[in-house]
């Protein structure tokens, strides 16, 4: 979140990424574990940096060559420092060009399916965004301002059976629970805690003449974190396929998670939007955060 609005909003960094580099964004928790050619290539590059123990996180910024030589690793959020490193790496790369000239593309071979999940065949990908609407205390802190204005992004996967049920005017229980547990969350300041089954105190959604309405009450056992929310949206099906799905969930959220500190005090309004993905955004291809490590569990 912070990198998007600071490092990758820096005009010179953005210009270099567009013209002098091939930029790639990864969830390193997948790449460092993958037992396939992609995993091998990632470990070859990252292993030359200080985070070569692949049992732990390897997050950060890397610049490397197609041949697998690491030019730099950095995990500092200072855009000016990153810019300097990028410029230095371009000089290093120029010196290496002769040795890189004959490097071939790596054959991907068979992908490790555990770390290359794909959306359910015949199902749907829905873009999910969330925003805290108000309630923050005023701040002059640059990073907190970014969090306070953030709109998050995740994807909801819908199975083929659920897709068909929606077209028949039903919102299956499995879909209601998935939306509640994994997507009615405050992920605007970092990776959020998802809801456990027992924390879904109530969820109900219905679809009548294309109008989806519903509500949910999510709350931890100790009451320290919760969300009471209403939903409204429009779902249009044509020729057995959903062609429009736009839903808004809005309610009062309270509390925070280990990685979502500095929430507004008390209860605050949070809105979550759901919009059918059309594949035009590269982020449409990213697995849902709630599916990390257990796609079957996410889709059950």
């Amino acid at each position: 979140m912070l990198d998007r609005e600071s490092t990758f909003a820096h005009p010179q960094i953005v210009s270099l990424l567009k013209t002098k580099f091939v930029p790639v964004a990864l969830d390193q928790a997948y790449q460092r574990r993958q037992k396939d050619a992609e995993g091998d290539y990632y470990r070859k590059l990252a292993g030359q940096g200080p985070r070569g123990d692949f049992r732990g996180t390897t997050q950060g910024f890397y610049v490397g060559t197609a041949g697998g030589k690491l030019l730099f690793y950095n995990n500092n959020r200072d855009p000016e420092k990153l810019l300097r490193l990028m410029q230095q790496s371009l000089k290093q790369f120029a010196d290496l060009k002769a040795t890189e000239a004959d490097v071939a593309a790596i054959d991907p071979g068979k992908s490790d399916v555990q770390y290359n999940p794909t959306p359910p065949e015949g199902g749907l990908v829905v873009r999910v965004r969330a925003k805290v609407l108000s309630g923050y205390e005023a701040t002059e802190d640059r990073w907190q301002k970014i969090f306070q204005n953030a709109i998050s992004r995740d994807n909801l996967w819908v199975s083929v059976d659920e897709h068909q049920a929606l077209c028949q005017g039903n919102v299956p229980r499995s879909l209601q629970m998935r939306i509640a547990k994994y997507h009615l969350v405050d992920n605007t300041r970092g990776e959020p805690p998802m809801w456990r089954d027992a924390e879904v105190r109530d969820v109900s959604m219905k679809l009548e003449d294309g109008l989806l309405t519903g509500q949910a009450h999510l709350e931890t056992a100790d009451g320290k974190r919760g969300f009471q929310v209403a939903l409204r949206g429009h779902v249009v099906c044509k020729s057995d396929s959903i062609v429009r799905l736009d839903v808004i969930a809005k309610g009062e959220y309270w509390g925070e998670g280990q990685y979502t500190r500095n929430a507004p005090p008390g209860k605050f309004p949070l809105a979550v939007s759901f919009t059918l993905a059309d594949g035009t955004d590269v982020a449409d291809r990213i697995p849902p955060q709630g599916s990390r490590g257990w796609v079957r569990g996410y889709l059950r």
Partner: protein
Amino acid sequence: MSGVACIDWFRKSRVTLGLFGCMLLSVAGTVHAEVSEDEFQHLHQLLAPSADTVWRSIPWKVELLAAQEIAARRQLPIFIWAMDGHPLGCT
């Protein structure tokens, strides 16, 4: 009606129906207000991504070997943004 007023009412009326009514009011109190159509339209627009978001203008790849293939073909270095959780999603 507050909880205290409700109990007072029950004590005074001594009618079982009074308690039932209190329970109904209590349950109704947890139901969140509906989202109106105007509010839906407003929030749908508010949460849509802005066209001028700079980081989204970067031509990110999400497959490392696809990036490696381009880097080899075009003789460019690869810039990897590797995070816990996908940097383009997750949060």
